[in-house]
């Protein structure tokens, strides 16, 4: 293959439809053939430490939408202060925060599809931190208003 041919296939292509960050001819060919959404996760090579395939881009978007809805619900619940007991508000907010936390850690940080060693480290640290600081705050009388 001559140098001229090589240059032709790897130089960025000016695409009239895309004015920014156009790719190489190979990328555009592949995009034309598959499109990002159409390459199923099963055909993507596994990364080191992965047990199964990541979610598809569409599934990522669905998870983001769920996170947005939960965030909106959280904000709405926070405005109910005075209308419903504070204890219920705190329970609902912590519950929704936990769901968001688990969704991001499981699907975006891939704890669900990676080897369990990562999950064990993270859960041990997160749960350990919660218990440790709950003990500290209880000892310091935060919940009963003492000093």
């Amino acid at each position, binding site marked *: *293959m001559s140098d001229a041919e090589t240059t032709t296939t*790897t130089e960025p292509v000016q695409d009239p439809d*895309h004015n*920014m*960050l*156009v790719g*190489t001819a190979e*990328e555009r060919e*592949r995009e034309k053939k598959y499109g*990002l959404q159409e*390459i199923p996760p*099963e*055909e*993507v*090579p*596994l*990364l*080191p*430490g992965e047990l199964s395939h*990541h979610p598809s*881009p569409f599934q*990522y*978007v669905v*998870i*983001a939408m769920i*996170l*947005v809805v939960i*965030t909106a619900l*959280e*904000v709405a*619940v*926070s*405005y109910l202060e005075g209308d419903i007991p504070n204890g219920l*508000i*705190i329970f609902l*907010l*912590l519950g*929704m*925060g936990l769901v*968001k*936390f688990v969704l*991001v*850690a499981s699907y*975006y*940080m891939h704890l669900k599809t990676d*080897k369990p*060693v*990562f999950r064990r*480290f*993270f859960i041990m*640290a*997160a749960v*350990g*931190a*919660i218990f440790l*600081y709950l003990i500290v*705050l209880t000892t*310091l009388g*935060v919940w009963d208003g003492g*000093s």
Partner: protein
Amino acid sequence: MEQAAIAPPAGGAHASTPVHAGHGDHETSTGVTNTKLAMWIFLSSECLLFGALIATYLLYRGRSKGIEPADVYNIPFTSATSFILLMSSLTMVLALAAIQRADYRRTKIWLVATALFGMTFVGGQVYEFTEFVRQGVRVDTNLFGSSFYLLTGLHGLHVTVGIVWLLSLWGLTTQGRLQQKDSETIEISGLYWHFVDVVWIVIFTVVYLIPR
């Protein structure tokens, strides 16, 4: 040869074979790469750091003289910046999905989008801090001010570090130095970015939304 740098399309017989991590990573007795394990251990230690700062905030909340959180918080504004940070997590995983599919054009777009979302979040935090100072809440005003600025400021610093990291990855991708085989590099930066996001999920709920 330049063409050799282009990764082959994903799929076929290689689909379920783990790709080699870049930068000379080698087989380990744990079956996972050292860099990824190190990142998870680092993030685990960060849980304790942010846990300590959140506990400090809860300890001092309601015990300060003068201005209290409820006097200065702008929940609609902070909700908007929280939404932006959530969206940055989406663009981050889309960047990873793109490089795993050897789609470098979209990788660059999503990396830049993530960095821009991060910059918007930090910009919002700077605006919020400016407003608080204007209303009389400074680091040395009371215990609320000290613990609030320390907690959210450290989080903002983490976001800033993440932005620099993302922009450097964008630069590497633009130069063709980050290829499909280096997907783990993007994944590790993504782990950091998503961790910053989950920490904000906790801060937003505990610091801003939960009533006194």
